[in-house]
């Protein structure tokens, strides 16, 4: 059967299941209807809520400027979908073409879209994680709980991990006049995303705003009282801090467990798909009926050496969802690539931080505009002599220009005159990212079989 031949029938009366009812799932559903899909559409979400917006959860909600309940995403149109909320997907049978839910229901599909996103990486010690006062922040409920705790006026909050979420929470604490300690294993906040040169500015911002920032240490244990309330945290440098609240901000884990055994290339690093959002099976063969988008997806980007990028970016979720929805409804020749240039933003300590491109690929950096000292600048990252990324502090309006430079493969360092070009780091320097050669992931697959007809890839469980 030709995959293209039945496109018309699919559009008219096909069955599409979207697993993951958040930003990507919703925008994909809207695009499907926009593009004339009149078949049945089912959205599955493990939370009881309709899709909501996450960026306010670590900012406005914690500040009390917005209620966690009021973060529902605006709809661009009616999607006429069957909603299966509060019930997670438990498995996928690709041969039978159905999704199994935890309540035992099965949802048959002609096309499946995986938008299950990520969850917060939990504290490594389950008993400590269960202490009253230990939080993660990913969902609406997480945010509402943390808001109540912060509103109750804790004596001191410990933020574990100074990535974007952790730094935003630290910022909120200071704005609420709550004492906060940030413990970060790296030498500065945001180092993993932006490198140490820029991260030094982030560190200064935190300290200038009264954050007790402790870098180069990790939290080794959380200690509770007999009633199960968090009391103290122990650090790797031997010190201990009395805290009532700890927020664990150690990044995200991709929600792919439900795909175990499905034969898809879905592991801890996400669901691998091509630039058209079609999911690969474990053997690296592209499927034609299963698509992925958003935080859970991992796809090759032509601008960045065809590296498989998985991006936890709001804009990526929207754009990738639209591409996936478009592609699942059209003939192969009409499919579009997901060429979105990665972009994200954050607000902390009154500063708007934005990034475009993939800074972590950078091997050199110049401050092209503004000055690090003033926390108002654009840092441009180069990779082998071309512009690969830019990050701005309070200068986000310029990033469109740098995006064009990235898209055009413009030479690095930039050698032209610009407004606001200052003397700060005009010579390229090492952006100082953590050594990428330090292993962070175990191998996750093995190849089995001998004859060409039976050679296959199998996922293996990570070693405990």
């Amino acid at each position, binding site marked *: 059967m030709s995959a293209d031949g039945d496109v018309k029938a699919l559009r008219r009366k096909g069955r599409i299941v979207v697993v993951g009812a958040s930003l990507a799932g919703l925008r994909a559903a809207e695009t499907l209807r926009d593009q004339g899909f009149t078949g049945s559409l089912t959205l599955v979400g493990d939370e009881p809520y309709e899709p909501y917006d996450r960026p306010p959860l670590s900012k406005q909600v914690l500040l009390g400027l917005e209620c966690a309940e009021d973060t529902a995403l605006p709809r661009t149109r009616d999607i006429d979908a069957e909603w299966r909320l509060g019930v997670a997907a438990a498995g996928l049978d690709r041969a039978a073409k159905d999704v199994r839910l935890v309540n035992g229901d099965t949802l048959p599909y002609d096309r499946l879209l995986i938008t299950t996103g990520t969850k917060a990486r939990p504290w490594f010690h389950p008993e400590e994680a269960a202490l009253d006062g230990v939080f993660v922040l990913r969902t609406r409920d997480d945010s509402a709980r943390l808001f109540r705790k912060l509103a109750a006026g804790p004596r001191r909050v410990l933020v574990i991990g100074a990535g974007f979420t952790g730094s935003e929470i630290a910022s909120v604490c200071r704005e609420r006049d709550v004492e906060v300690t940030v413990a970060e294993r790296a030498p500065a906040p945001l180092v993993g995303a932006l490198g140490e040169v820029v991260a030094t500015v982030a560190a200064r911002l935190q300290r200038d705003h009264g954050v007790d920032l402790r870098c180069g240490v990790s939290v080794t244990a959380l200690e509770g009282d007999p009633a199960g309330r968090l009391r103290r945290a122990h650090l790797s440098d031997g010190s201990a801090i009395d805290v009532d609240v700890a927020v664990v901000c150690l990044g995200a884990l991709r929600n792919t467990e439900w795909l175990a055994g499905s034969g898809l290339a879905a592991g801890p690093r996400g669901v691998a798909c091509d630039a058209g959002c079609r999911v690969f099976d474990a053997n690296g063969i592209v499927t034609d009926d299963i698509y992925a988008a958003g935080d859970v997806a991992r796809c090759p980007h032509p601008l960045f050496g065809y590296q498989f990028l998985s991006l936890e970016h709001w804009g990526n979720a929207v754009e990738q969802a639209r591409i996936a929805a478009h592609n699942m409804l059209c003939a192969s020749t009409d499919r579009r690539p997901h060429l979105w240039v990665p972009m994200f933003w954050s607000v902390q300590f009154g500063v708007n931080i934005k990034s475009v491109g993939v800074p972590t690929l950078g091997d050199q950096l110049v401050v092209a505009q*503004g000055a690090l000292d003033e926390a108002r600048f654009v840092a441009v990252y180069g990779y082998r002599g071309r512009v690969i990324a830019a990050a701005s502090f309070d200068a986000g*309006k310029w990033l469109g220009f740098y995006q064009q430079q990235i898209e055009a493969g413009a030479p690095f360092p930039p050698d*032209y005159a610009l*407004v*606001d070009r200052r003397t700060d780091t005009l010579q390229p320097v090492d952006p100082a990212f953590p050594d990428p050669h330090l292993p962070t992931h175990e191998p996750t697959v093995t190849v089995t079989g001998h004859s060409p007809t039976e050679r296959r890839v199998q996922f293996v469980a990570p070693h405990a």
Partner: protein
Amino acid sequence: MSLATMSAQITDFANRADPYPLYAALRESPVTRQDDGSYLVSTYYEVRSLANDPRLSNDLRNRPPGAGGPAVAEEDPNQPPSFIFHDPPEHERLRDTAMRQFGPPHSPRFLHDMREDLAKIITDLLDPLEGKTEVDVVDDFAYPLPVTAICKILGVPREDEPLFHGWADTVASGLDPSQGKEKPRQARVELGAYLSDLIDSRRRHPGNGILGPLARETGPGGSMSKAELVATSMLLLIAGHETTVNLISNTTLTLMRHPDILKRFQSEPGLVVPLIEEVLRYEPPVQFVPFTIALSDIDIAGTTIPKGSQVWLLLASANRDPKRFADPDRFDPDREDNQHLGFYTGIHYCFGAPLARMEAQLALPQLFRRIENPRLLADPPPYRVNPVLRGPRHLPLAIDGLVA
């Protein structure tokens, strides 16, 4: 028509009522070199890209010798240019300091709290039309509304208006590349002296308006010098005089030319939001920005704009680029994804855009609710001379009366 004379054609008053065929001809090539070495940029993506390009400077000190542009006495330390004519970091320091009075995060309710005042100004302007059979929308409504509003905001006595009306108009005419610079320069000095006195008196007796607080404001970049304060208030005063008036009158004219949409608007006042956005695309009050300077060679759309060139960004032409807007010459308030350049884009995006939108969104439903059976008495109406801040000088309408 020779392309070499295109900028002269655009500024030629004969083309004021309908410059759009000229823009269409210009869009044949996105970037056009003029005989005087300046470059006209006419297509949407190119204009947007250059407006966001840090290699393009607004600082008049970078102008090549003999180049046109607004009249400012750049050598006179007592008459510094306003923040429009600065690049970062000075631009950010001045604009951010001014912004602290106008909007979030420091003054989040500023505009919201003006709504009632504006509604009252609108009523006070419309009520006297009772019993008239003819109105001049410009003189009777579109001009006095924003002027009264900006006077109130700045705390400028309304009765001084006849005094500075002439100055504001003359200073703004300095933007016209085809006009002489001496008169605008002189008007600037006189208006500056007036504002300087006013600021002194507001410092002593802080009345209403933001001039007093602005004089005391100490933003992250420190406070403004007296001369900077004068330049900033002059900018706000002139922008309040010369732009929103065109937005209101252009909207009125466009509605009169589209009776079907007018009819719909009268029964559907909520249409005003997309309607105003479409006017900003279709008949933008600021037609082009003729004074930016390339700091480096800039490759764009197959052309290299050499370092030191003066660059005109034709916003009104970009807004009608068929590569960006389907059927661009059609006025369509239902247009989706209407990301026009009517307020410019980038770091110099119109400072007063939220105020202008609010004024227009409050004014037009009231105007068309109250005037009965309006008929256009002249089409095209007589236009103002200024090609940059383009709009009718008068907009006479016959009406049957006024609804209460």
